[in-house]
């Protein structure tokens, strides 16, 4: 008897979801979404400030809007994606990482954004890579790139945050703009 002779208890493979065309990297609105719960620590705001600075430098004609979107309680991603779609944003960058629920949900929003044609990525601490990759795999986008942040959140210091996050911010810009 082999494993193939057994009845698998696992869910069926997920259906692949479509990827969005890349952003030209010129003009347009990029939404930066802070999904962290601990707002008083300032991690999400700091990371998104670094991303906004990178976009301003690499794509000076683009504008960014930063929103706070903590992911707790009832999750309604489709309403958010519909809003982004109607606002005709050119890209979405999420950050999360002080909460695994938020991380998974924020990345699901990236998957759904891509499905409606909005290029998306996340800047997420590498410590949450497993749940991030599991989310992307089972939501049908194992190929969606994430800019993983090697520094643990609790080691980010306000005076050096922008420079620490800079490589991940540049990576996020590349993910949005490159196929």
């Amino acid at each position, binding site marked *: 008897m082999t494993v193939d002779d*057994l009845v698998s208890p*696992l*869910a069926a493979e997920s259906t692949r979801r479509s990827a969005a065309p890349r952003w030209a990297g010129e003009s347009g609105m990029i939404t930066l979404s802070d999904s962290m719960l601990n707002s*008083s620590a300032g991690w999400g705001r700091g990371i998104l400030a670094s991303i906004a600075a990178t976009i301003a430098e690499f794509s000076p004609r683009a504008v960014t809007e930063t929103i*706070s979107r903590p992911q707790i309680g009832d999750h309604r991603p489709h309403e958010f994606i519909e809003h982004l779609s109607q606002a005709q944003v050119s890209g979405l960058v999420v950050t999360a990482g002080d909460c695994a629920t938020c991380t*998974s949900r924020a990345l699901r929003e990236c998957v759904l954004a891509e499905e409606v044609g909005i290029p998306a990525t996340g800047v997420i601490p590498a410590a949450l890579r*497993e*749940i991030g990759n599991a989310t992307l795999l089972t939501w049908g986008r194992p190929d969606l790139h994430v800019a993983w942040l090697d520094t643990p959140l609790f080691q980010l210091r306000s005076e050096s945050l922008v420079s620490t996050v800079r490589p991940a911010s540049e990576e996020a810009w590349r993910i949005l703009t490159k196929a």
Partner: protein
Amino acid sequence: MADPLVCPAAWTEGLPGIAPTESRVLTMLGRNLERSDEVVAEVAPRLGHATWRLIAANAVIAGCAPDDLPAVVAGVRAVTQPRFLLDQVVTTVHGLWPMFILSSNAAPDLASGRDALSGSSGANARIARAVSLVLRNVGGGHSDAYDAATMGRPGKLMTAVVENSSLSPWPSWFERRDPAIVDPAVAAYAADSTLCIADMGHSDAELLASTIADSLTIPGTYNAFFRKDLWLILSPSHAWMFADAGWSPTDIASYIFDNAHQPYSRLRGRGLFGFIDAHQAPRWLSPEPGPNEQISIVDHPRRVQLAVVGAETGGYTTVVFGSGVTCVEELEEC
């Protein structure tokens, strides 16, 4: 060559499981064979489709008997009710995991007795384990995927209790909750750690109630912040101490609401404060209480859930801390 008795390790939480052969799964399905591909529930976070066949395969691995299948299916349905917020329960860094409360008719052969909360109970070893395997194998709830618990807790492996109606002085929890609920039924609660309260040297119901109430006011629990459901698992001895003094479960719940409290100054800035109160502040925080205002562990007496479980001897109440609400599903005749 696979061992015909042991299932592949990747399909379990680490304990050995029974290999889900075709014949064992068919036996488990029994009269439900025609419903094999019927989807019972979509299991978050991966939104896997839990069909009868998949649930049966997981029940085989857990060591269930075919008679257990209705309770397992009801358990899956209970945790996938939208208000249970299974997605959040599984993905959180907290150690939350469903606890199941079975009416005594839901698992007659697993009637609650000695060691009811432990692994030696069939309810734990079979039914709770089977539902947990569904969450793992169909919903992605394992630590290589969606379960990001920082530390977890031993009770995540399997937690289920069967009410001990034969030794309880009161109607079952299900009857008290809603007389319209058709027994047998299963309830699910997003549980955290348990705390065992011993109180055996007297027969004073009010003193016992105060021992329980005083033991509940711990600033760092999720209950201290959300103030939602709180389970008290009473041993028959404690239940009868209350009943003999004329206390009903409603009286106990009211006492807990009135007496299990702490001043707001003891809560502010601790526990979940500063983490999520800016985004999901419970209603009780608006307007912010004064420092000396007493904050009860629950926001209403009906949040206190009581079940009588366990063996005759020993005066214990086990508190099950947790988050959220309790969801109920009746057992379908299979």
